[in-house]
């Protein structure tokens, strides 16, 4: 008669990581109050790089920034940058004033070291 196998004893492991995120994520929106042609994804990325170059020079422009998503209709995007470059990127976006001689402004809608946190924003919860 085969004996029934006992279930293995429960194992538990807990890992706590503090400030360990390698990347930071920003959800941004570009505002073009004067209207005109909207940049495509590559032009948007070029704009971000030129903002970095304007404020932080060539070294700043070499900061690896990924445009994870870009929506041309709403001009909103999710950017990824290494954590040590967050302040450089955010300051460069804040101080960018012109795109192709048109006024522009970057609005940082949400920022987090977790990409998952950007998928839910309770501040944008609009109820009728």
């Amino acid at each position, binding site marked *: 008669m085969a004996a029934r196998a006992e279930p293995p004893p*429960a194992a538990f492991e807990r890992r706590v990581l503090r400030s360990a995120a390698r990347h930071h994520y920003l959800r941004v929106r570009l505002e073009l109050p004067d209207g005109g042609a909207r940049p495509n994804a590559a032009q948007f990325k070029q704009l971000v790089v030129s903002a970095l170059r304007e404020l932080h020079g060539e070294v700043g422009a070499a900061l690896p920034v*990924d445009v994870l998503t*870009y929506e041309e209709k709403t001009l909103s995007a999710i950017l*990824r940058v290494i954590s040590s470059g967050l302040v450089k990127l955010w300051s460069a976006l804040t101080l960018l004033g012109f795109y192709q001689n048109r006024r522009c402004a970057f609005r940082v809608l949400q920022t*987090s070291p977790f*990409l*998952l946190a950007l998928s*839910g924003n309770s501040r944008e919860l609009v109820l009728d």
Partner: protein
Amino acid sequence: MQWSTAPLFWTPQCWEVQFWQLALVSLTVVSFLIPECALLPEVLKSTIADIGEYYLVRNLSIHELVAHEFIDAFVKKGSCYALTYNTKIDQDNTAALLPNGKLILSVDKDTYEELGLQGRPSRYSGKKAMRYIITIDLTDAGFHPESKKHNRVLWALKEKKPLEFDFLLAWYNTGAEGSTLMSYFSKNQIQALKPKITFSTLRDLQCPVLQSNDLQGKPEESCSTEELFEWLGAVLNQVSLDNNSSSFLSTYCCPEPNTVVEKAFLCTITGFIIPEKIIQLLEQLCCYFGEPKLAYWLTLTVHGFADSPVSWRESEHGFHKGGENLYNFVIFRNLDYWLQMAVGAHDDCPP
């Protein structure tokens, strides 16, 4: 910013107790992802349909939540949840009612001084306290209608400094008969709302390979918990997973090793959702593996409100740069699970 992960063999009874200890107070967005699934089983569909309503009451004075009729009808008979709507925790006055009967007020310095109720300075307001937290236990034995405590609180909130907010309310009724929130607040502008539910089927999705007992991953064998967490964020934000390392736009790609699944089911529920409903959903998701399935694991992600004055249990929550407080379950086919909890800088480590 900190998060923790635990794989655990569980039995249904002990798991529910642990979950209660972990539950965020109230939830705004819940998503679950099931790889290798095109159609949702009927049991899950009905659990989602049964997620319940919540209510939005405009211009509700906070002293009404301290009234004994309200406490006896709702707070003592089940779990009542309330949270101010459209208030920012780092700027405005905010209030929340927890299911254990505690009313938490997070107020600025002027309001605190005008109210005259006892509280403590916020942990995240710096050297000069500009924000104070007042906790009122509505179910305390010393808080009966004729007590000094009750009279003082009522006087402060009704006459000294009346505070009015738009509130999100929900009530989990343990079967007791009596009035409903809708009938109790019929004189105020109360609206019943249903959470917004969206379904989508993702095709040809690259999914990381995971080993439940390997949190840190093994090269060529499994991915780590951090890689899964980032990948899940990418899927829920519709990020492309297929980029070259030399691509101009983005170099993000799915962590290795990964497999391509033909289809995956993604459901997102947005609204004011209470933890009791999440437990029911989680139980049903675990039962998904009761029959043989192709999927090796599935995930359930839950976000808390960024502007809630409390996050885990009663620990104070601040916004800082993001206000994130969320958790993610990864449930494996063999019923191991990973629980990843993430908080922002102005938060305590989750329990």
